[in-house]
């Protein structure tokens, strides 16, 4: 039994009642009767869970993963509230038939939501306007032209809606239709909303769950991919693009998420790889599971392909809603300012003693970030990759800021290949979308060693340097402790057009640590030379005397200083010389 998917229960999005909905008309008569019978039963039983089990025996497979979800209130509240019908009402507004369709049941066994449920969860209630719901694929080969193989809307749901009142364009790939594979029609639908998004100036959110190209369509499908890629590239830096990978995503399909600004994944159910384990086995003879090859853990901790992973579909979608609030709608908009209850002049006394007296001892940069940010909230990007640099979004007096900080807790906070690339990409995103940058510096330098040199630390380190130098958004820098050598220059220094550069009293701005410096200057002969060097450079005065730091500030006043500066810098205008585009060392 493989029933048509996109039919309505009560009233579908296009406003049709069940019997008159064109999508409803497409299934065969016997299927329709069967479903009607089920529907009737359901109404009779007033949606109770017991009836569900009784009339839809397949539910027993899925009661488990689904019930384990936290059922989000916004959903429950926008649907018929029935006491025992939590499971029933959550999301099964239009996309109901998953209860009698094998594919959907399989999804639920995995703990996945259907394409429409995802959209429903992501967007504000009743805000989704669907596009192209009558589009069908155009393939006539391999029996694809039979009625049985035609699904209204094909394997993707597209449209626009609101997230906390703000406009967003969304597409959600439907794994229950040909495994979410990309047909020409599928691509055409996605391209349509991307074009609109770029035109209007609103973000594009992709909920990816696709097995890859639709083999039956051949080159048509490949062309579709390329059309999407082109739009990804053209939209890059114009509107924020976010991919949430919620299922397998293989082959050509992975490049669209890779081209977008942020790629998020769902733990245990989503995969990204160019070629699956079978092909890997046949080519390199490696035995590897899907999870090891391209699971959420691999991509968030090892490869750096994904920016963050979430526990399950619901957690991911709700986090995406929260994340969306940090972003401007397009490069034409300033960073959003939210209502804020946290006083901008709040002093943070604990910062006065957060930096340990011994300069070799570590502390957690996240403590500093949390304590200065509004309500201690920080949306960290890539929290488990290249942990020696911390990047993410926070708000200062309600305004979104991008925060970059060296993390002394991991590898002393030194810059290496991965952290440079991670930092650079984040800085460029902020610069593209008018998000002010706040940089906390405690960096002993670049990581030495053959592994780094052979890996091209010079080339990759240059990316971070490039990104900070070309950024024209407000840039505020706080040197908390070490700012040594070239890494000092890189980390949004005054010389790279920093707008406000501050040092804490514990700052040490020098070419290198005292020990190394003394060995070079005195060849280790002078015993008290180290103390002299420390006296001379292990403090912020030499830099302050030259104007390389604007002020030496009391750490507890950091939040207040940043908020005041941001208010002033809100009207900053700065531009780089005209060019077609810069040539960042890729």
């Amino acid at each position: 039994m493989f029933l048509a998917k996109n039919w309505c229960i009560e009233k579908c999005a296009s406003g049709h009642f069940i019997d008159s909905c064109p999508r409803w008309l497409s299934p065969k008569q016997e299927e329709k009767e069967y479903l009607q019978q089920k529907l009737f039963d359901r109404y009779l039983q007033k949606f109770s869970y017991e009836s569900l089990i009784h009339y839809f025996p397949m539910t027993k497979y899925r009661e488990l993963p689904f019930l384990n979800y936290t059922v989000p209130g916004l959903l429950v509240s926008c649907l018929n509230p029935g006491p025992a019908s939590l499971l029933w009402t959550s999301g099964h507004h239009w996309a109901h038939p998953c209860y009698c369709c094998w594919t959907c049941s399989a999804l639920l066994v995995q703990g996945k939501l259907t394409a429409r449920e995802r959209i429903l969860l992501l967007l504000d209630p009743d805000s989704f306007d669907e596009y192209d719901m009558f589009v069908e694929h155009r393939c006539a080969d391999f029996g694809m032209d039979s009625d049985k193989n035609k699904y209204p809307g094909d394997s993707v749901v597209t449209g626009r809606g609101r997230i906390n009142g703000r406009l967003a364009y969304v597409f959600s790939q439907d794994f229950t239709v040909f495994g979410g594979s990309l047909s020409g029609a599928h691509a055409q639908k996605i391209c349509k909303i991307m074009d609109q998004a770029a035109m209007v100036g609103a973000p594009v959110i992709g909920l990816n769950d696709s097995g890859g190209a639709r083999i039956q369509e051949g080159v048509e499908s490949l062309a579709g991919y390329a059309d999407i890629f082109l739009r990804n590239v053209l939209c890059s830096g114009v509107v924020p693009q976010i991919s949430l990978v919620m299922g397998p995503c293989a082959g050509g399909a992975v490049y669209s998420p890779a081209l977008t600004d942020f790629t998020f994944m769902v733990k245990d159910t989503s995969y990204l790889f160019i070629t699956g384990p079978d092909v890997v086995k046949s080519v390199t003879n490696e035995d590897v599971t899907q999870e090891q090859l391209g699971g959420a853990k691999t991509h968030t901790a090892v490869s750096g392909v994904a920016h963050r992973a979430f526990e399950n579909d619901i957690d991911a979608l709700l986090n995406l809603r929260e994340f969306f609030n940090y972003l401007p709608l397009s490069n034409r908009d300033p960073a959003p300012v939210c209502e804020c209850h946290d006083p901008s002049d709040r002093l943070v006394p604990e910062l006065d003693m957060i930096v340990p007296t011994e300069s070799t001892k570590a502390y957690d940069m996240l403590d500093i970030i949390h304590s200065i940010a509004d309500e201690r909230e920080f949306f960290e990007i890539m929290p488990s990759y290249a942990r020696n640099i911390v990047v993410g979004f926070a708000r200062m007096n309600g305004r979104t800021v991008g925060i970059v900080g060296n993390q002394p807790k991991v590898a002393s906070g030194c810059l290496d290949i991965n952290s440079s690339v991670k930092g650079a990409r984040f800085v460029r995103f902020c610069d593209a979308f008018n998000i002010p940058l706040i940089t906390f510096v405690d960096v002993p330098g670049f990581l030495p060693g053959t592994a780094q040199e052979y890996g091209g630390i010079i080339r990759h380190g240059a990316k971070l340097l490039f990104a900070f130098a070309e950024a024209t958004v407000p840039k505020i820098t706080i040197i908390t402790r070490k700012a040594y050598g070239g890494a000092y220059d890189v980390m949004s220094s005054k010389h790279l057009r920093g707008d406000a550069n501050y040092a804490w009293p514990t700052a040490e701005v020098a070419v290198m640590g005292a020990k190394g410096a003394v060995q070079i200057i005195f060849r280790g002969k002078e015993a008290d030379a180290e103390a002299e060097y420390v006296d001379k450079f292990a403090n912020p005065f030499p830099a302050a005397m030259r104007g390389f730091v604007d002020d030496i500030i009391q750490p507890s006043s950091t939040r207040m200083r940043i908020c005041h500066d941001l208010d002033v810098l809100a009207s900053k205008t700065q531009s780089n010389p005209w060019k077609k585009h810069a040539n960042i060392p890729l």
Partner: protein
Amino acid sequence: MAAALCWGAAGGQRGLRALMKCEMQCARWCLITSRKLYSSLYDPNEKTFEKLLIANRGEIACRVIKTCKKMGIKTVAIHSDVDANAVHVKMADEAVCVGPAPTSKSYLNMDAIMEVIKKTRAQAVHPGYGFLSENKEFARRLASEGVTFIGPDTHAIQAMGDKIESKLLAKNAKVNTIPGFDGVVKDADEAVRIAREIGYPVMIKASAGGGGKGMRIAWDDEETREGFRFSSQEAASSFGDDRLLIEKFIDNPRHIEIQVLADKHGNALWLNERECSIQRRNQKVVEEAPSTFLDPETRRAMGEQAVALAKAVKYSSAGTVEFLVDSSKNFYFLEMNTRLQVEHPVTECITGLDLVQEMIRVAKGYPLRHKQADIPINGWAVECRVYAEDPYKSFGLPSIGKLSQYQEPLHLPSVRVDSGIQQGSDISIYYDPMISKLITYGSNRAEALKRMEEALDNYVIRGVAHNISLLREVIIHPRFVQGDISTKFLPEAYPDGFKGHRLTDLERRELLATAASLYVTEQLRSQRFLGTQRIPIAKSKRSSWELSVRLGDGVYPVAVSKESSSFSVEVDGMKLNVTSEWNLASPLLSVTIDGTQRTIQRLSRNASGDTSIQFLGTVVSEGQEICVIEAMKMQNSMIAAKTGKVKAVHCKAGDTVGEGDLLVELE
């Protein structure tokens, strides 16, 4: 900010000091003017020490420094290297590091401390409590250097430090001691005779057996004979020592102590009692003054005996005589502490005396200014010891960490907090995990307890586990409220261990309503963007929400509707009105639910709506719609989240482990 300009790494400490001084100026003014806690008069013309060293850390060091500032005495703090940024170091005029973190190398390091005294030319040393406060060797060395030890003289410390000698002294001074017999008992008849002399109930055991081993309690002659038979057999067979100990058994004892204050001129006062019966593992948790149990006669009798003992050892300075009091108000001398006690603030609250000031005056040689008749009992004071520990495990297992947020409830009336830490401080493994002493004062006990309840709700401590939930449960426990307590209170009141607050139906509804309102408030706020928008924001006109809230194992439907400034929440078919300012940035949230005011604390939240709330002292973890009571949240045992092979172990036995350190990797 002007002071900040001169900061440098080298000059940083100096700048810091200057800044701290400004703050201290204000603090001094406050201490003198705003707190009616001490009515002790301060005579600025009375000559006193010029400089005083505090050989302690934490809250007691701060406490001493405060009085010194009031009296115009310069202060020297000592500290270990990890305490370099501690509050007492910042408060003192001078601070010197005396060694690394372990106490034996720093706060107990007499050589280093003597060195500091010489270097700073401190004229006197206040030892606080613990550390060197009852160390006669330290007192002797100070005396030989001509430095005043603020406390009794060596003789008194020695006499009272020895358990046997102190009991003998007490007996001679006609202080009630626990009557008993220790020696060879011929036969059962003699045992009965001794027991009758002592008075039932008695405790019989072999002298050689340590602790409570082989202890038998006899309430009459028959039980005494039996007890004699068992104990003498055991004494002979197990220890080869025939001696038996027959002692008065104190039934449901209370721990009540008398504060005494004596000078070097033979004057001594008793400053009433402190009830310290609420204890766990022999450590006090809640103390109060006066005791609900004592009548004026018993109080006077105890006070007079305490003073007699103090005079017998020629005691000077402040000291405490501890008594065990049985259910029929018989009291027995336990020991005398020759130092300032942790719980001294409750005595200060009800008598108005500043004990530290009096100690300093006495040490300088001045006679006491008060007569016994001048010592009042004004009102009631309660002290809770707030510890960084997990109360769900044997009423408190220490926890360590950084206080990421910390706010004392000083905005409430009649609240005193003695602490030596601040936001950002580390609670380390090296020292006592006490965060602070929270003291409330009222004209009567009920008022003091009510204020304590509020103060505990308004106390913000984040980053470490704390025992606020236990403290709050104790002070509202019916037995405690009635004053029906003994040293066994905690194990008796919570025989299965402390489990956090049990919600009543009403409280559950209040919690559900608050949680739902909080969630809706947050949802609404996330739609409010400031400034003009290029693409207009679609305003939600929604005014009602139907939520499913999970609390424990139950799922509760909750309907919220917004009415101008408040929420009307329907739970279990009942309508509750929830009002608050909903300041989501504040760690404290004052909510009025149907006229009942509650202060809740939101500890954390995430995008999925999971929130944990401190409600009535207990932490409640709450999903977006879930309120899972997760009282065991703050445990420090390590449970593997999944099974797997151990890949690498990153620590070895004895290593110090910090929060967030990677210990064991699983494959």
